[in-house]
């Protein structure tokens, strides 16, 4: 529901009435839909799936096989990246066919690549959450609590309506950086120094949260 329906609802709803003009243009609508999908997959879906498998002993069962531990986790990441790819394609197709927002071919490719990069950011945040929080129930609640600010912050990176401090924090938040990159990927803004900054910040977020998630991750329920 969160992964596919919510991005599509947002894609359509942000174009209704006066919303479109207030929130941003077509590129903003697509990038918001993609950001919501990525946060849903990485921060909520992935971390919860990992926590549940840990609680029920699925990981311990896999770890007594000769399969190296890293392959167990990489296989999960591949599944999530597959989900991101499908979600991004669905959003772009719906945007083109049903909402009338089209991009140039190279921008489609670039947008999907940036979506995959964004998924690394949010998967690593999910990994950090599942590393720091032991119980699946607590993690479910924490994931949902984080969901709102992660998406909320991505809304105001290009707007000073809530003040310049909020704008600054928003712009350099994980969601804000992704918005900046997606905007450039779709050709709505030129690739600039800010785009490079967002790329470096996203890479930094990925490394930071991945290190936290791997350092404190436990395979078995505590």
């Amino acid at each position: 529901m969160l992964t596919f329906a919510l991005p599509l609802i947002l894609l359509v709803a942000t174009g209704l009435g006066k919303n479109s003009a207030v929130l941003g243009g077509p590129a903003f609508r697509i990038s918001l839909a993609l950001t919501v999908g990525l946060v849903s997959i990485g921060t909520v879906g992935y971390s919860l799936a990992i926590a549940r498998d840990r609680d029920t002993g699925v990981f311990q069962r896999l770890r007594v096989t000769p399969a190296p531990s890293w392959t167990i986790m990489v296989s999960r990441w591949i599944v999530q990246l597959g989900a991101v790819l499908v979600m991004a394609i669905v959003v772009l197709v719906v945007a083109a066919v049903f909402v009338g927002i089209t991009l140039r071919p190279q921008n489609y490719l670039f947008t999907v690549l940036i979506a995959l990069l964004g998924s690394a950011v949010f998967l690593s945040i999910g990994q950090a959450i599942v590393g720091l929080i032991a119980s699946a129930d607590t993690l479910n609640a924490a994931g949902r609590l984080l969901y709102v600010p992660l998406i909320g912050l991505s809304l105001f990176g290009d707007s000073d309506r809530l003040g310049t401090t909020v704008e600054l924090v928003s712009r350099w938040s994980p969601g804000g950086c992704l918005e900046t990159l997606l905007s450039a990927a779709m050709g709505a803004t030129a690739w600039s120094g800010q785009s490079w900054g967002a790329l470096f910040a996203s890479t930094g977020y990925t490394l930071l949260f991945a290190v936290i998630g791997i350092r404190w991750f436990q395979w078995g329920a505590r």
Partner: protein
Amino acid sequence: MTGLALQVRDLHVSYGPMRAVDGISLDINEGEIFGLLGPNGAGKTSTLSAIEGLLKPTSGSILIRQVDVRANPRKAKALIGVQLQSTSFQSELKISEIVKLYAGLYGVPLTKPAIFDSLAEIHLGDEASRRFSQLSGGQQKRLSLLIATIHDPPLVLLDEPTSGLDPQARRQLWDRIERIRKSGRSILLTTHSMEEAQSVCDRVAIMNRGKILTVDTPAGLIEKHKKDPNVLAVARGQVTLEDVFIGLTGRELRD
């Protein structure tokens, strides 16, 4: 009995300041069923976890058919089949897909008919397209045991394999464990059931507070300890294996 399937020497496992396993040594012969008995918290599961490579021992050595578990964990894991105390499999997979996945992890290519044959052998042929969570407790244990032996390992580790099963399911599982032994494999199992230890195990070790207190055949343990004052104090008539167990490990409740 031709050699040792498992050799554990001076094994120590600690969780912070707490010593879960405190210098145990044991040998399991090829084709032998060896039982680890002990109250809750005695160190049985920690011992098994160290052998399975799930936790790192503080010190000591574990050799599975002369393969060092700590030096060659992947090679050692290929030599063991494991049924964990509480196991679950991927909820999104069907039973037949779970069998295929785990066979693949051990490098055993199974065709579709072979998967269905192996499921039929444990009376799960009709359940192939169901999920693990949809199976009864007995069916789940049978599937876990099938997966533990899917690669024909020389040593099978079973952590309380019959806990929570009704008498019929328990007997069926004992028969299956006996068949595994008859195929030449060794089995190390933990249990709280004295009946299981007596019915299934060739030799039994009684553990308490991380140490092995005694090792022998079930009948040998009774013979060895039947005059122990602590055992006699808890016996109600003829000394049983349970009297020996309680006499040696104490009457107090463990959590």
